[in-house]
């Protein structure tokens, strides 16, 4: 296998006038977890659909596992797994029947399928639910079933489109443990999400906004090089202070977190802490503290829109 599981250059998809994805360059290394981080409508699903061969790119070149799309889409289908954003297995079939159907579609032999399904049921804690219909299961159970079905044929590349959107935090943690297990066994995983904490778990990630890639790289690197520094301050009347600070060109964003205000200051300002303390608007501040940037800060600097501030 090549170094890159997915390579895309200038990948573009237009729906009429709207470019859902424009000029996306992508390199996903084999055996890693790669994240697409972006708000709803940022083109995550469209990008994934192009990479799985479900949508034809309007422009650009894609090569997935060494196969170029869309010409070799059929050959690719055996090697990839895809967990759709919406639950796409049959709600009127039981867990066992769903998995059995998928096994048959991928032409697994009878014994082989039986063994594999047993194995998946125990891996994903679905043994007790084997005879239950998918329609009557909770979000977390369905998600585990969907992951089991997507990995049944041992794909070397797995696409997960917002896999945890209908799942509680505990289930999300367990789910990520399972993803790391898969990754350890050599599976490349591409996962889209709009949760910052999830994105932070990825080996590498790309930040998408309005169909464009704003940044990519390992989360730590992104945080280190985001071009702004973070100061948290405490002061009375934070609402007013926030409005005042947002008026300054050096302030990238300001967001209230309870009794504190998280301010992103452009890194052209040498000492953001002192600079803030010296501002007349912030003279009432009782504490000023430089803090470690989070992925959310990266996201806000990249997309250029302080969403929570406006």
């Amino acid at each position, binding site marked *: 296998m090549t170094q890159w599981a997915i390579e895309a250059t200038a990948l573009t998809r237009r729906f009429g006038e709207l470019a859902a994805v424009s000029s996306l360059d992508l390199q996903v290394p084999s055996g890693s977890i790669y994240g697409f981080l972006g708000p709803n409508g940022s083109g995550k699903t469209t990008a994934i659909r192009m990479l799985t061969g*479900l*949508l034809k790119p309007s422009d650009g070149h894609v090569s997935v596992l060494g196969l170029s799309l869309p010409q070799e889409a059929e050959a690719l289908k055996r090697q990839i797994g*895809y967990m759709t954003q*919406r639950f*796409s297995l049959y709600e009127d*079939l039981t867990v066992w029947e769903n998995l059995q159907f*998928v096994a*048959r579609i991928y*032409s697994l032999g009878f014994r082989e399928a039986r063994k594999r399904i047993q194995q998946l049921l125990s891996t994903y804690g679905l043994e007790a639910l084997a005879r239950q219909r998918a329609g009557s299961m909770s979000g977390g159970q369905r998600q585990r079933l969907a992951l089991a079905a997507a990995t049944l044929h041992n794909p070397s590349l797995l696409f997960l489109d917002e896999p945890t959107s209908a799942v509680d935090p505990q289930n999300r943690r367990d789910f990520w443990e399972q993803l790391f297990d898969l990754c350890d066994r050599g599976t490349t995983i591409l996962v889209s999400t709009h949760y910052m904490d999830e994105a932070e778990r990825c080996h590498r990630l790309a930040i998408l906004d309005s169909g464009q890639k704003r940044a990519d790289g390992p989360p730590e690197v992104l945080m280190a090089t985001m071009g702004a520094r973070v100061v948290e301050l405490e002061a009375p009347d934070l609402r007013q202070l926030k409005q005042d600070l947002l008026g300054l060109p050096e302030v990238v964003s300001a967001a209230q977190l309870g009794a504190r205000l998280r301010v992103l200051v452009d890194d052209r300002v040498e000492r953001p802490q002192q600079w803030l303390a010296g501002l007349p608007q912030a003279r009432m501040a009782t504490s000023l503290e430089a803090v470690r940037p989070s992925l959310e800060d990266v996201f806000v600097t990249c997309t250029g829109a302080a969403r929570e501030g406006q």
Partner: protein
Amino acid sequence: MNGLRRILAIIAKELTQLRRDRMTFGMVVMIPLIQLLLFGFAINTNIRHIPVAVVDQSNSGLSRVLMQTIAATQVVEFTERYATPQEAEAAIVDATVRAALIIPADLSERVARHPAVGLGSPPSTDQETSRPVAQWVVDGSDTMIAAAIKGLRAMPLQELFRQPANRNVPTFEVALYFNPEQRTVVNIVPGLVGIILTMTMIMFTSAAIVRERERGNMEMLINTPVRPMELMLGKIIPYVFIGFVQVSIILGLGYWVFQVPVVGGLGHLAAITGLFIAASLSLGLVISTLASNQLQAMQMTVFVLMPSILLSGFMFPYEGMPELAQHIAEVLPATHFMRAVRGVVLRDASLADMSDDAFWLLGFTVLGLVLASLRFKKRLD
């Protein structure tokens, strides 16, 4: 080999889903059962007991005998009696009766002069003196009712006097083959096979692909190695069995309840029915690839179903339709099946006799399958 396995996987999945869907499962049996009993008893073109009124201006023994003679034909039943023709006309307008018999005051003279009675000496043939004995005023909007009453026009009058009718030698002798008792149900039952199969087969399959799309299953399916033709075949094969179950119900009940014989060979019957089921299913699949939701699929099914009922020869003879309508009817699988199944069931025709229709159905199936597979893309755009 793998293709076959995938087709079997889809068949097994369809059957499980069908078994879980109690309503649809029930409909498979109930549609042919109820419709057959309903239509078998209800549709009757031999019209009997039409409610009519009488305006008896003669009010004589002769007029009463005339009414009894007419009632004895069982075509009409005198339910109302009015004093004037105007009241009778009003009764026709408000649909109390479908026709009215106006017996004139001079009934006796008219009967006496009527050439058929032969009492007049010499029998008069003059328009002036020989006139019909009474008049029917008929709601002619329903042509079947009108035709039934028109049939009374030449009722022999000899019976009025308890005389044997003259042995008239008919111009033609008519030998009625295949349905000598002229029971409508004999023609209805095999035709109903075509109508019910058109309805259920197209409906089931037209919903089949659309449902997968609506429920989001399609996005998963098109990501698997399954080929369009495999998906199409896997979707329709379960319904072929259902089609045969329905045919057995209709023809079986037709035989036990309505004494409609199945004269032809069962092999021929199975062959022609199989072809029709396949044609209907492939049409359903084409609809399925055109419609974007189940409501649209249902509308398109009705779009095909209505002409299949009205133009296929099920209700009205094909020969009576204008040429344009015949061309339209030729396109419908139901027309070809109607012709062929009546041939096999009632006239012991063989498949060779019906080869034109059989080939047409076969061609339609192949065309439909190819079209549906071509239209079905394993992509979302």
